């Protein structure tokens, strides 16, 4: 069970309200794409799911359990760091700027989580890491450092690293925005394969083709609210709201 529910999520950054009551559900096994102009709050919303960002009010449930907070009398209190870390270890995250650990090879990057956090024996972790790297098409790049890999290759290692923790849910924060156009496809292909395997995914993206092809649900965000959400073909081909129309006319 890895459905994600946003219940009236608010967030303000020093007085500026960036999320204004988000209500949205991603069913287990679904792929949800968050689209919208920059500054609309989609990345912030995504980062609330693994508590990289705190919320001001409202609740986010992952697999039916509240994340980042716990009940404290008649209010909510930030959960214990240990509990947050534990929940995070089951949620994979892929960043726009890859964020591979620069002092480790591709293989070491993918082995690190299982070895250090899950206490998997090194030999087993290495075998699993090699398998994952093969799965993202990088079996021959295991000994390379991030600086020796192209952006697309780095991002695929980053996906393998996230998968190494055997997550129930994957978060993608503009995974192809920092890539040269000809490298976007290789990363999207890995993500499509992942979606076919039934991974629950929330993807912040500007790739409308990907959203239309892979997503089960698309949510268009603008100035901290979800303007409309639903079937990708409906939203992208026949948007109802003016703001959605205006945005899509610029990116399509």
């Amino acid at each position, binding site marked *: 069970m890895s459905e994600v529910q946003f219940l009236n999520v608010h967030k303000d950054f020093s007085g500026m309200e960036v999320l204004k009551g988000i209500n949205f559900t991603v069913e287990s096994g679904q792929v949800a794409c968050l689209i919208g102009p920059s500054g609309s709050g989609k990345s912030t919303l995504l980062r609330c799911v693994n508590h*990289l960002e705190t919320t001001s009010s409202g609740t986010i449930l992952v697999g039916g359990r509240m994340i980042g907070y716990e009940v404290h009398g008649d209010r909510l209190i930030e959960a214990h*760091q240990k509990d947050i*870390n534990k929940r995070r270890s089951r949620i994979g995250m892929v*960043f726009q700027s890859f*964020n591979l650990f620069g002092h480790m*090879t591709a293989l070491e990057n993918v082995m690190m989580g299982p070895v250090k*956090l899950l206490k998997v024996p090194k030999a087993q972790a290495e075998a699993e890491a090699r398998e994952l790297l093969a799965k993202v098409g990088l079996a021959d790049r295991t000994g390379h450092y991030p600086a020796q890999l192209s952006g697309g290759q780095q991002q695929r290692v980053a996906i393998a690293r996230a998968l190494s923790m055997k997550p129930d849910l994957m978060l993608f924060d503009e995974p192809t925005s920092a890539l040269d156009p000809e490298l976007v496809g290789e990363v999207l292909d890995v993500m499509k394969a992942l979606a076919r395997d039934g991974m629950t995914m929330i993807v912040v993206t500007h790739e409308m083709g990907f959203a239309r092809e892979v997503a089960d649900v698309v949510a268009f965000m603008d100035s901290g609210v979800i303007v409309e959400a639903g079937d990708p073909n409906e939203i992208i081909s026949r948007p109802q709201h003016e703001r959605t129309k205006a945005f899509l006319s610029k990116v399509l």
Partner: protein
Amino acid sequence: MTVSELPSTAEARHDFAELASRPVLKRKRPGQLIAMVVVGLFALMGAYVIVTNPGFGWPTVAKYLFDVRILDGLLTTIELTVIAMVLGLVIGLVIAVMRMSDNVLLRGVAGAYIWFFRGTPLLVQMLFWGFAAVLFPTIGIGIPGGPMLVEWNTNDVLPLFVAGILGLGLNEGAYMAEIVRAGLMGVPAGQSEASHAMGFSRMETLRHVVIPQAMKIILPPVGNETISMLKTTSLVIVIGVGDLLYNTQQIYARNLQQIPLLIVASLWYILLTTILSLVQARIEKRYSRGNTIQARKA
């Protein structure tokens, strides 16, 4: 532009195939030659004076170079350097992490520490530690304002060597904190974020992700600090710790051979700093793992 349109310079009238076969000469630079002669002459004059002036007392230098008191002082100097640097590094790391904390008190205390120890001369701090017994005649563990549980005489538990270590180490900690902080801040925030997102705690992130990458930023200045510390340890003579310089002074106070004995001390200092420079280069090479420039070479 075609060949026929080339400007008719002097070379253009030559047969280019023939020109291409001629050897290339390096143009002479007379200014450099003059500088070479002048500097060379000065160097020769210097060497001549050093060798011939009996005041340098080379036979005396040779006699004392391996004197047991000199070697004993040398050992103390090395011990002071190593222990003070380790103390400085540990304090530096703690203060740097405190300085970057989001807690106002921790940040304030770290700031005050750096402010105080960088703001007063090391020589003065050293003298303070030497006179610590005046300030605190006894040291003990007890309840503030209440009774003491255990108590010692300061002069008994704080030998001069320890006072020297504290003077050097606490001061070094302040400088080291700034070096470590620069290193930690030099690691992009995305690295910590990726680590946190995987479920690593703050301490684990620091240990496995941030510090290993901060090392290559931190190491060169730490190497410089160590070399500097080796020489700075000589300040302990003001509180009478028997290091290399102190023992050197003890010898020339009796035989009045100041210059030869100071040369003895200098030779040892320069030998040690040379060794440290070589060690520094090797360690830096080891920590440059995953460096962009190195990666491109591979």
